[in-house]
């Protein structure tokens, strides 16, 4: 039996009079890939922002591995193993690719400022370990040759992958990818699908939550799909059920005569 990792119960967010997310409930198990799809403005990214605590919930409950995390802060939630990417690759522009990934291991580091000043062995050990983990992760995503470069000088598709490496390096329980395929050309999209499969093979326990518009990606890798429209879940199911759901077609294609 696989274990439930992340669960939301009736989470809700209003912006002024607009209900961005209305009572969204879902759960994701160990090793599962779930996609959230829906037209622009359906509240998909808001769900991510609620789970990663950028926004406060107006109602509902979120739990991680059975523990209630509704009241936790962004920092706590990140440290507990929920990591994410953004629609517009928010990399640290002034840092090298390697440092961008190493940053995400900061909280796993185990030496203090005092130890660093006295050059104690734990500083060297920790820094070596951090660099090794970051390099492993860059290798997995075939990014190791960019390690010393600044992200701003790299093609957009590479930047998106660096962001995935950064989200993955701390060995999270849940990886949330916000439109990982947006802005990618067809070749890059293929590569992305391959990398997602490799990530799945390397981290069999990792639960992945993906917001995506590219249906070829969604249909080929997700185990289960939620369809959002105007903040509400209008359909859910496995890929073939969703593809033929009349409500989904209506939301995507508009009212048909």
């Amino acid at each position, binding site marked *: 039996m696989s274990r439930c990792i992340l669960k939301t119960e009736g989470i809700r967010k209003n912006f002024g009079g607009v209900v961005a997310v209305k009572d969204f409930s879902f759960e994701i198990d160990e090793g599962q890939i779930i996609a959230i799809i829906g037209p622009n403005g359906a509240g998909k990214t808001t769900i991510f922002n609620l789970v990663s605590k950028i926004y406060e919930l107006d109602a509902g409950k979120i739990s991680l591995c059975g523990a209630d995390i509704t009241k936790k802060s962004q*920092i706590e939630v990140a440290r507990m193993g929920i*990591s994410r990417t953004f629609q517009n690759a928010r990399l640290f522009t*002034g*840092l090298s690719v390697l440092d961008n990934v190493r940053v995400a291991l*900061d909280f796993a580091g185990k030496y203090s*400022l005092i130890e*660093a*000043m006295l050059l104690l062995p734990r500083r060297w050990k920790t820094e070596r370990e951090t660099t090794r983990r970051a390099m492993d992760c860059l290798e997995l995503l075939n990014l190791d040759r960019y390690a010393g470069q600044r992200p701003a000088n790299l093609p957009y598709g590479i930047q998106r992958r660096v962001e995935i490496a950064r989200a993955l390096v*701390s060995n999270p329980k849940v990886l949330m990818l916000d439109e990982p395929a947006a802005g990618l050309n067809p070749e890059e999209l293929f590569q992305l699908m391959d990398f997602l499969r490799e990530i799945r093979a390397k981290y069999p326990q990792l639960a992945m939550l993906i917001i995506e518009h590219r249906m070829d990606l969604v249909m080929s890798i997700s185990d289960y799909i939620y369809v959002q429209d105007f903040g509400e879940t209008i359909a859910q199911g496995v890929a073939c059920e969703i593809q033929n759901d009349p409500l989904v077609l209506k939301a995507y294609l508009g009212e048909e005569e």
Partner: protein
Amino acid sequence: MSLQLLISGISLGSVYALIAVGFAIVFSVLKFSNFAHGGMISACAYIGYYFQRSFPSTPPIYVTILFSALCGVALSFLVDFIAYRRLRAKQAPNIYYFLASITVSIAIVQILSVFYGNNLYAYPAIFESTTFFIGSIRFSTIDTLILLVSLAMLAVLIYLIDKTRVGLAIRAVAINAQTSKLMGINSGFIIVAVFAIAGVLAGVSGVLLGLKYSIYPTLGSQMMLKGFIASVIGGLGSLSGAIAAAIILGVVEIFLTYYLGSLSTPIILFGVMLVFLAVRPEGIAGRFAKDKV
């Protein structure tokens, strides 16, 4: 003669660098110019002075520097607690930090004036001779001490920023505090670390300035202005730019003072800053400091 001037200039510039870096590091993380830094330098100069005086025999200078640095950290935390903490909690616009930091700086100067008046105090002499010779070249003992201590401090600081996890976290928060939080970086701790570093720098530079000049309540504010010029010319928020600019500034100042006198020198220095702002406002380092919330 010009070699001595050069050493003296680099020595002065390295103190400006300590000040500029203390200023720049707070700017890079918190995005405001911490003018309270000048007041803190003055306060630390007095602390060092009284520490030197309070023992029957003058303690070694490194003990005084260490003590002053610790007091600088305490003072830095106190200023943050009194002036900035609530602004942060309210996510106040930068203009309020600016006002708070200037107010704190003036308050510290006034407190020092009330207690010590506007008299000049001089640190007790710590060396038997004010100069020493290497071969036939004469060096100023104090300038050399200042140079060595400052360069050591800067080296430690660069190591800390470039080679440790705290430094990496500071750089990340400086670039984007919001994204850093999602990486699990405790930005609250980073702010504490940054104020601690600024405090150490204020403490050390206070004592070094005290050794070089006589101390008076506005000493720190005046010197901070030079550090501020350096951090602007260096590119606000860029540590290496600030260090380079500070050392150049020190050398230029010493040479100008020697050839033109101390009255007209500041006019030229501030003139250079105005030219820089007009021609290259992004500084030597070449990147605009961005205010991100």
